[in-house]
């Protein structure tokens, strides 16, 4: 919830940002950065760290708050999101933002970089995991499947791909725009160990990560069943909220819902 609240504040200050796809992956980020990933926030370039690639690079509204809350940089820096005098670019930016392992934004490219990192880690003999989160619309890009083919053929078992399957893309639902069909079957045929889990159930997702790490001899893909705009009633499942900024009234409602949910969770 903290990631969502911090993210929404960030969008409010910037007057822009992609909320929908960020809110569908908030639990994913929380499990990775606060539980599973082996990282050192005070030493962001530590060479033995686990790597994370936000292949759906537009969802910095999930990434930057996570990094700030995890201690990679001061939360005040979030005020510079999408601002001309700051470095928190609209899409993920590795050169100037501590904790960002790859610059992304052009869809389909991040996963290839993650595959390259997994290969690099193997070559260096490093025992670390490389995580990459893709959108379920993003995987319409052919490059994703080129990368899958390589990762499968090379048996990169240190690679854990995650599809944030929120079923909605910019123009409409994934089914309407271009149905991607049976993803489990597709990824399996590319040589992946595939798991389907509820992407908002932190325990189930954490267990899936453990199983993926334990799996040897093939890369992993976790298809996370999620809801676009999760946590805000009027945004949930709506393609209109892919990249739209709420008005003042909508911000009020959204924050009220998030704070109420946070209270219920005892946060």
């Amino acid at each position, binding site marked *: 919830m903290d990631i969502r609240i911090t993210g929404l504040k960030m969008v409010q200050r910037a007057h822009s940002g992609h909320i929908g796809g960020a809110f569908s992956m908030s639990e994913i980020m929380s499990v990775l950065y606060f539980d599973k990933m082996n990282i050192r926030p005070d030493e962001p370039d530590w060479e033995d760290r686990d*790597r994370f*690639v936000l292949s759906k690079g537009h969802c910095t509204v999930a990434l930057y708050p996570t990094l700030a809350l995890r201690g990679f940089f001061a939360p005040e820096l979030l005020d510079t999101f999408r601002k001309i005098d700051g470095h928190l670019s609209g899409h993920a930016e*590795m*050169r100037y933002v501590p904790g960002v*392992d*790859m*610059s*992304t*934004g*052009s869809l*389909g*490219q*991040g*996963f*290839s*970089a*993650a*595959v*390259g*990192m*997994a*290969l*690099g*880690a193997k*070559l*260096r003999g490093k025992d670390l995991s490389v995580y990459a989160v893709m959108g379920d619309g993003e995987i319409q890009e*052919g*490059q994703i499947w*080129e*990368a899958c*083919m*390589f990762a499968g053929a*090379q048996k990169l078992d240190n690679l854990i791909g995650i599809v944030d399957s929120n079923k909605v893309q910019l123009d409409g639902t994934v089914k309407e725009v271009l149905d991607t069909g049976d993803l489990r079957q597709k990824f399996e045929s590319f040589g992946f160990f595939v798991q389907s889990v509820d992407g908002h159930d932190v325990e189930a997702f954490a267990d899936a990560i453990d199983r993926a790490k334990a799996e040897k001899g093939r890369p992993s893909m976790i298809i996370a069943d999620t809801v676009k705009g999760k946590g805000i009633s009027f945004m949930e499942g709506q393609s209109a909220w892919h990249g739209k900024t709420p008005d003042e009234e909508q911000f009020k409602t959204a924050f009220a819902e998030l704070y109420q949910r946070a209270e219920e969770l005892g946060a």
Partner: protein
Amino acid sequence: MAEKIATRHAYGESLEKLGEDPRIVALDTDVSTCTMSVIFGKRYPDRFFNCGIAEANMIGMAAGLSTFGYIPFVHAFAMFMAGRGYDQIRNSICYPGLNVKCIGTHAGLSVGEDGATHQCVEDIALMRAIPGMTVICPADGKETVEAVRAIARYQGPVYLRLGRLAVETVTDVDGYTYQIGKAVQLRQGSDVAIIATGLMAGEAVRAADMLKEEGIAARVLNMHTIKPLDEEAVLKAAEETGCIVTAEEHNVMGGLGGTVSEVLAEGCPVPMRRIGVQDRFGRSGDARELLKQYHICAEDICLAAKKVIVQKEK
């Protein structure tokens, strides 16, 4: 006459020598026996990856590999490196400033018989338009060896343009040193300056010899680095000769002719002509015959040189 060698062959041998550095890794897209990365692959199989016919993924993976301290050399035909891989080179390599070397072979018309789909005459323009990219096009085998060493040492993204055709060595001139961004003078002269890149450097030298017989002293500058351009050498040539001819196996738009004319227009406007592909697609045919048909030979350079000399004297 010296033995002819294709720049891609010189490249392959040179990359193999560089392989002593354990940071060098090579990736190819099922054309390793054409790009000649196969030589490295045979010597260092653990650091060679055939990515299949998938340029986009290869370039993206190279970005990831470079973050682990490797220096990836990625290989494809120029058409599919700079053309198909443009977005990946721009966003995954150049934007984050990663240390990846993009090798585009079989560039230009001189691919010959394979025809227009494989004759990339836009790669220099595409690559040079990307901020932070270094663009290099060696004149011959000897220079290629120097260029490969230099780009391996250089920290940052590079596009290296190589050709299929065997070419004569023209850079065995006294005092030759290779430095990224520094033009090499192959002939002295003050009547006109011919600025050439890639295999056209050989044509430029031939043109200068032909002009000499007519009493015209042509300076020849081998512009092996198109970006960053040696603006000083261009402006000096313009000031000292008063007219310029550029020569490239590339569209005259956006390539060497384009970049030289930009510098001249701002710094020292003098009469100039651009020898190159005149905004047309290539076609199948023998490489040398194609260069003739597209008017990018020594004879065409001579004609252009005489025209700009007349123009400057008006």
